[in-house]
């Protein structure tokens, strides 16, 4: 995982609440063995007509959305399926962070493991960002703070996740380094509790 210290970008605003991972990437795009190439599935049913033309009016299709790396969305973003493809699709679509007032647990965990930032802000900061699409924001991982014209907001980021982001450390490497403790646990726990089938 590459280190993430600061994200500076304009925003795209998608104010819907409860954006579920089936909207972020519909299941038919999960029929793949790769994590590449998922950008075409990003918000596919909201973004594209059946014949492939862009749906006018959808936030990501507006010209001013081009190049924006921060998505501002409504409460409970990423609910539903555990598909990590949702994070991969957002990244393939050019995004580095989502700002919301609340994130679903599994999405949040998946995002952080990919260096993608779930930025949870208070209602006031969120309202400001929603009313001003395209606002320039700066997300400072070390300071756990998002700043923009007319406001700033702290966001929760647990110390371990913050450390991993700042140092580009991945969790698997950390777990592998705990081999001695894991082996000791297994030794004490004994064999798996199953009769073989």
């Amino acid at each position: 995982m590459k280190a993430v210290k600061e994200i500076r970008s304009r925003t795209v605003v998608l104010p819907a609440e409860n954006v579920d991972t089936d909207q972020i990437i519909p299941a038919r795009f999960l029929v793949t063995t790769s994590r590449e190439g998922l950008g075409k599935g990003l918000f596919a049913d909201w973004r594209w007509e059946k014949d492939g033309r862009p749906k006018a009016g959808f936030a990501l299709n507006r010209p001013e959305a081009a190049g924006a790396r921060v998505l501002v969305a409504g409460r409970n973003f990423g609910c539903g399926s555990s598909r990590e493809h949702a994070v991969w699709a957002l990244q393939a679509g050019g995004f580095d962070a989502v700002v919301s007032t609340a994130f679903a647990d599994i999405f949040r965990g998946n995002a952080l493991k990919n260096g993608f930032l779930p930025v949870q802000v208070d209602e006031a900061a969120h309202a400001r960002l929603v009313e001003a699409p395209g606002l320039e924001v700066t997300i400072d991982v070390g300071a756990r703070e998002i700043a923009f014209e007319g406001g700033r907001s702290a966001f929760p980021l647990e110390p371990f996740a913050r450390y991993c982001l700042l140092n580009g450390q991945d969790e698997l490497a950390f777990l592998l380094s705990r081999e001695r403790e894991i082996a000791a646990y297994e030794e004490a726990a004994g064999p798996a509790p199953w009769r073989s089938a």
Partner: protein
Amino acid sequence: MADGPRTLLEKVWDAHLVSAETDDTPAVLYVDLHLVHEVTSPQAFSELRSRGLGVRRPDRTVATMDHAIPTRSGPDGRRAPAEGAAAEQVSALERNCHDFGVTLYPVGDRRQGIVHVIGPELGLTQPGSTIVCGDSHTSTHGAFGALAFGIGTSEVGHVLATQCLLQRRPRTFAADFDGTLGAGVTAKDLILALIARIGTGGATGHALEYRGSAVRSLSMEERMTVCNMSIEAGARAGLVAPDDTTYAYLAGRSYAPAGDAWDAAVARWRTLPSDDGARFDRVERIDASSLTPMITWGTSPGMGISVREAVPEPDGDLGLEKALRYMGLEPGKPLLGRRIDVVFIGSCTNSRLSDLREAARVFRARKVAPGVRALVVPGSEQVKKEAEVEGLDRVFREAGAEWREPGCSMCLAMNDDRLEPGQYAVSTSNRNFEGRQGPGGRTFLASPLTAAAAAVTGAIADPRELLR
């Protein structure tokens, strides 16, 4: 570790700590059982290969195929083979399980099925254990008093390589259902009512524990239906304390312990229920006797109402307005009598033998209404076989419903079982998200009884009227 009285969750959590959490680091939590399927695992196995890692505990890892495989039969009467990219996922899983020494129950095996159906029926799912899978409905296994939750593909890789996950302990949320469910009111209605009350983000950050006399009197399959939908309330895990119902279900199953090991296991499991005086971070109480058959009207599982109620007024709520528009519904109007196109009975929520028996009660001596397509998709090969021994397949076929091969099917439309744009379905699955059952498709979630009632009347109906 918690001192004093502990909840079920805390007991299971404490027993699986390789190292406890600190302010700076999450806990290293040991995983007893890792279930794997074809859609969320290939990238994790690729990661292992690229790092030169093996699967640490193939004996604690079991794989099957369920999400992307066809459930229709080919011309030879056997299941149609997966094609294209789905076939690649299937062969990738076969190759990965072979190369890494993981047990696989593939298509054609008598133990194949939806991953959350086969874990319990094989006896792999046991009280007090930790169970994960790259699928959010892993919460199903919590019905046995296990801590079971869905993980992403990165975490699938972590568990394959180390049998561990980095986790913070969830907060505890007791959902207490006292009283007795009325006739025609099922476990599905109970969980839909809870989600309607607390919302789809209502239990985020928590593990639910379902308690109370109404939960105690549920069968294991009904408890699985309840725990299955914990994630639709935002909870990664949902648990029911194990009891004699649990042990009676598990006894004799192929992976369940036997003889002295069984007695020792039951003695251990009896220590799991939450202690008297154990504190929950949140408690919600629902009178089960007040519940009625539920149905969702919108595009989020929290948008549920009693089947006889009117669709709510949005009162300026943009989310509700958007859902009404997508569903093509008018506020203030009842759903009863509304024509539907498709009925889907299946999914990890409601595809077990008792679900099929319930549906068959309604289908028996009736016909699927003209113009309606009804699919009945058993959750596993074993469910299919048992249903056929009882003649349930004949009941469905004679009514004009399709009797399918086991898999996830139209729950998430990854294979060719899909709604057409604009079609209305009554579905026993778990998600009514926009396009979940096919682009443009519109889903009403309900119990097997309510879904079957819709199939035979061609419209949304109160199943209690057909059971008289």
